[in-house]
């Protein structure tokens, strides 16, 4: 287990390092950041001054080393627009994002796991087909279309829910549903397939033959084994979908999280914020993936022994 954890950690570190490097060079590739921000209305002396202030005139590799050094001393520079440290700007956005993400994940699990089980047990009746049809079509509904239609109906026509912002419990409802929509559709399908694989196994028949109740068999023997597969899917797919979803959903509902920050930084070309924000989210996704990976290995001893050296 320890060596498996170490391998996961190493892979995590390498991935993050690659991303940091790509982000750095991609930003510099686009030409001089100063020109984007101040535009044409600037004398060439002032332009030189700004360039030397941001140390953009030094060799690329020196800049790269300085960028790497910022990870050890925690100085990531100032926002072009807000003139505050980017780390402050990004970090204060984490909590609202995390809240929304947790709400959406909770809703997803509460809805999709029971639905997936139902669809697997009654897979040959209309119930199973209906659940799968809804999940299938739900997967094709873009989250922003869902969000906009909900706003139209529940905020403008029925006047039940606040349009944008956060603060009260009511503010959570639409963003949570809009974000969970695709996740629910995806996870319901995975849960069903994982359950189907398990339902036909010998140990299920054994459990029934022992005289256990059907509910006990399905939950204790079925779901527990299917859970391993479901867990890996959550790690592989859900973290990515959720990160992408929060960008869109937060921007639509003016939710003060990282996603909303990234979109406005991209539109305003606030590179320092964008750079730090992208790295923060990437790191979060990598860490979540690694945690799921470890949980997966912990739950399934076969994995940590067989995976060695292979792929």
């Amino acid at each position, binding site marked *: 287990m320890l060596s498996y954890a170490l391998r996961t950690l190493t892979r995590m570190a390498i991935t993050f390092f690659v991303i940091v490097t790509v982000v750095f060079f991609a930003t510099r590739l686009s030409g001089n950041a100063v020109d984007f921000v101040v535009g044409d209305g600037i004398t060439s002396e002032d332009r030189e001054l700004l360039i030397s202030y941001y140390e953009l005139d030094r060799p690329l590799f020196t800049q790269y080393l300085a960028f790497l050094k910022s990870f050890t001393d925690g100085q990531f520079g100032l926002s072009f627009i807000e003139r505050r440290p980017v780390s402050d700007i990004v970090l204060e956005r984490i909590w609202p994002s995390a809240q929304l993400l947790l709400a959406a994940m909770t809703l997803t699990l509460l809805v999709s796991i029971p639905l997936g089980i139902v669809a697997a047990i009654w897979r040959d009746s209309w119930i199973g087909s209906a659940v799968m049809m809804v999940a299938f*079509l739900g997967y094709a509904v*873009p989250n*922003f279309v869902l969000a906009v239609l909900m*706003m139209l109906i529940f905020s403008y026509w029925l006047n039940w829910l606040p349009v944008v912002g956060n603060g009260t419990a009511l503010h959570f409802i639409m963003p949570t549903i809009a974000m969970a929509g695709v996740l629910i559709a995806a996870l319901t399908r995975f849960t069903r397939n994982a359950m189907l694989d398990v339902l036909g196994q010998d140990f299920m028949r054994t459990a029934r033959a022992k005289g256990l109740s059907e509910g006990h068999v399905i939950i204790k023997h079925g779901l527990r084994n299917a859970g391993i597969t479901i867990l890996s899917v959550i790690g592989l797919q859900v973290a990515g*979908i959720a*990160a992408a979803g929060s*960008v869109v959903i937060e921007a639509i509902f003016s939710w003060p999280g990282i996603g909303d920050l990234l979109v406005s930084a*991209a539109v305003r070309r606030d590179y320092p914020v964008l750079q730090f924000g992208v790295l923060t989210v990437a790191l979060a996704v990598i860490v979540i993936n690694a945690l799921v990976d470890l949980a997966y290995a912990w739950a399934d001893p076969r994995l940590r022994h067989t995976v060695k050296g292979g792929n």
Partner: protein
Amino acid sequence: MTHSIAVPATSLPATAYRLWRGADPIRKVAILIGVMLVVLAIFAPLIAPFDPNAQSLISRLRPPLGFERAKEGYLLGTDELGRDVLSRSLHGLQLTLMLAGLGATLGLLFGGTLGLLAGVVGGRTEATVMAAVDTQIAVPFTLVALFLLAILGSSIEVIVLVLGLAGWEQYARIVRGEVRRLMNMPFIEAARAAGAGPLRIARHHLLPNIVSPLVVQFTLSLSNIVLLESTLSFLGLGVQPPTATLGAMVGIGRDYMPSAPWIVVAPAMMILFITFAVQILGDWLRDGADVKLRAR
């Protein structure tokens, strides 16, 4: 003369007819919607009653025909600048489908080539390609897209490039996996023994055998790319105004939703139709290509 192995001997129309006969009602509807959307997109300039960018300030925010204050000739109403919503939706559909097709093709070429290279050459090349694939999987692509568009600007070329990068890692993974599986097959060894070089093996023996998983992946990624393009346009980072794309129409129309919901509804429905049709067709293709599923 080429000697390919895996190409079936039936003609394209015959295959299409056979597929249509075997399709269940939902799939038939999906096919009809898909064909209709493509036809509408291709002939958009002929069908659209107005210039999509022609403004008319005296007929701003008119509702669709049949509602009060509707204006003659504007079937789906007008937007905040008095432009015809139907014409803009049709042109938007054309641009959205074109960008998605270009993007998906680019991704197929880029990812497929890298996967082929990794599978055929192996060694350090393979390790590098697969490391890049793993890194790409670890980073949500929406982030990459935001980042690239912010740096390089939202010109059409950059957007096609960004859409082309989306999903390349899936192609690379699939092709590399299939190639590695096929490389151990006797017929590859036979080809090699007959003196075929790596290029010839790749073209005549490997590619024909990996076409079907690639077709499936292409269809699935098409709907993802439509979604990505719409999302980016919606956020204001895609094709810039006044050019109409479906996502941008929803994004801008959002501000007028309380008083003029029709601006949003038409393009939003079109996006839904595209993704539904593509998803259903992609799923069908996958069922057909996956022997394991067919046996179930």
